[in-house]
């Protein structure tokens, strides 16, 4: 099939792959639109919902920047976790609403990834009460963590801090981005005009405000069931 495009058509079609155009887009076009359309950072964690299955198996993707990002600093953070494994396991058993939890170090961040049931604030409150000592040790290695210690005496501050460091969770349906951005800007939630062709721009600007995010609510093999229901059904606890 002959290509009947003119040279200008071919030139423009190839622009997205040109290094200079990517540079221009990154350093001129995107900042221009970020100035033109201020896009606030969206809050992390799951959004409130009265629906039962939205209140079980919720995700926390807590990203905490390390103070010391050298290999030695990262090793110290790893050791803080390794020294407290018993405290983590017994504490999470006592919390009772956690499906899975793990700490990981990704480059200059120590992250806690967990799946839990129920309200976010209650989860953190239980967490601090049961393994606050561990959290103190971890925060010792984290930027901005000093003001939160001892965590058992700063529970509300810890909740706010964790909320701020929990990744924003992108909506399951892409066009819901428009609603979340409108809400964050204080715009009315009635049915406003929105062009779906501009959704990629909305996403780009949001990625600028929230450099890291969780993509959708994720897959679940048995959605809608709490950790307690699973344990009870399997006959391994209550």
């Amino acid at each position: 099939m002959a290509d009947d495009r003119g040279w200008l058509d071919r030139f423009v079609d190839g622009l997205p792959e040109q290094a200079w155009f990517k540079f221009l887009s990154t350093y001129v076009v995107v900042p221009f639109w970020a100035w033109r359309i201020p896009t606030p950072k969206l809050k992390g964690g799951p959004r409130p919902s009265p629906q039962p299955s939205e209140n079980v198996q919720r995700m926390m993707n807590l990203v905490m920047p390390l103070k010391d990002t050298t290999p030695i600093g990262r090793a110290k953070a790893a050791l803080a976790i390794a020294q407290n494994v018993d405290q983590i396991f017994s504490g999470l058993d006592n919390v009772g609403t956690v499906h899975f939890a793990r700490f990981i170090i990704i480059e200059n961040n120590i992250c806690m990834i967990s799946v839990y049931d129920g309200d976010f604030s209650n989860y953190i409150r239980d967490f601090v009460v049961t393994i606050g000592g561990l959290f103190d040790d971890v925060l010792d290695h984290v930027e901005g963590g000093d003001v939160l210690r001892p965590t058992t005496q700063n529970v509300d501050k810890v909740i706010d801090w964790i909320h701020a460091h929990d990744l924003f969770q992108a909506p399951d349906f892409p066009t819901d981005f428009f609603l979340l951005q409108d809400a964050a800007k204080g715009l009315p939630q009635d049915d406003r005009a929105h062009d779906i062709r501009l959704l990629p721009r909305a996403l780009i600007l949001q990625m600028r405000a929230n450099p890291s995010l969780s993509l959708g609510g994720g897959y679940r093999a048995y959605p809608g069931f709490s950790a307690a229901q699973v344990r009870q059904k399997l006959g391994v606890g209550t």
Partner: protein
Amino acid sequence: MALSEEATPADLEMVERILVALRDPEGSDELRRVHACGVGAAGWFEASPVAADYCVARHFALYDNPALDRAGDRFRDPAAAGRPKPKRTPVTVRFSNGSGAKARRDGWSDVRGMATRFHLDDGSETDLIAMTLRSLFAPTAQTFLKFSSAAVAKACSRQPWWRKLLDLLRLTPPMPDPYVGQRIRGNEGAIAFAKRAGNDYCRTPLFLATLIGAPTSYLRAAYHAAHTFVVTGADGTRRWVRFDWQPIDGVLNLNPLDPRATPSDPPRDPLDPPHDYLRAAMIERLAQAPARFSLMMTLGETGDAFDDCARPWPPHRVRIEMGTLTLDRVLSDAEQLEKCELMRFNPWRLTPGIEPSDDPLLRVRRDAYEIGSARRIAARGRKAGPGAACPFSGG
């Protein structure tokens, strides 16, 4: 089936207007208004061990004899000695491309359909109509008509270079170039319609439709029956549910940058994908072994859109595995005509244990399918049956 008894002349006029709006200039009166090109297959459905707990419909029974359906037997290895063979319900399936054009364009980005007829053991039938989009474009007859009218296919052409450049500087992907041979499309009209205040209902399905692509095989796509149905379980509990088919082979689309139908084919221009490969792909696949789909049923919760088929449910609802569909052969050309093209699928063709919800578009589809299929069959010179007459003729 016949037209719904409660359908008023105004309802039927609405159906007529929708059918007019759906008319594809490149279609044919002998074909469906949408999903015109199809491929038929046959096989059987087997219920899962838990299906009957949630729905008492005949095809969800595990055994022919309900007395055999003891909990202790349900989860035993089917191959184990002494366990009765699960019941098989024969099915006919019509896979289709969403376009109403009579020319087959398998490689073009498009929604695909999977209409399944279950031939039940009491001689009755029930249908499950699904598609690769999770939701329809509008929730009511009125909104569907508005959307369909706005999305009528019109002449299309490549955007000029300066328009594309402006789009790139707006951080907006330019409109895709038309495929080779594509003269009309409804994309521009649908997108302009979705932009306007008050038309938010179509944004999610439309955005997802723009990304949908073309499957490597009808057997490698997931299909969603967008409507809500009400099922009654063995204990009499009624639940509001939605059904999905998940392919055991997995979901796989053509590579949009090199849309060759098989790895051994020569590289293809992205704007000139293969036109007729999906039937051959299915014949080749089923010659190796039967292909299977899992039927998943999602339970709705208070607060979900029970009567809004344009709004998909979040993916975190309780999901029940209701059974497995096995397809073992593609229909012959003669069967394709008799069992697929002349078959009158209808999303309202239900069976005891499954009821329609209050979804208003489901009701509209009942009549639209009846009237449309009767006319299509009559156009082929066959006996049209009930519903063929113009609903305004007074006949």
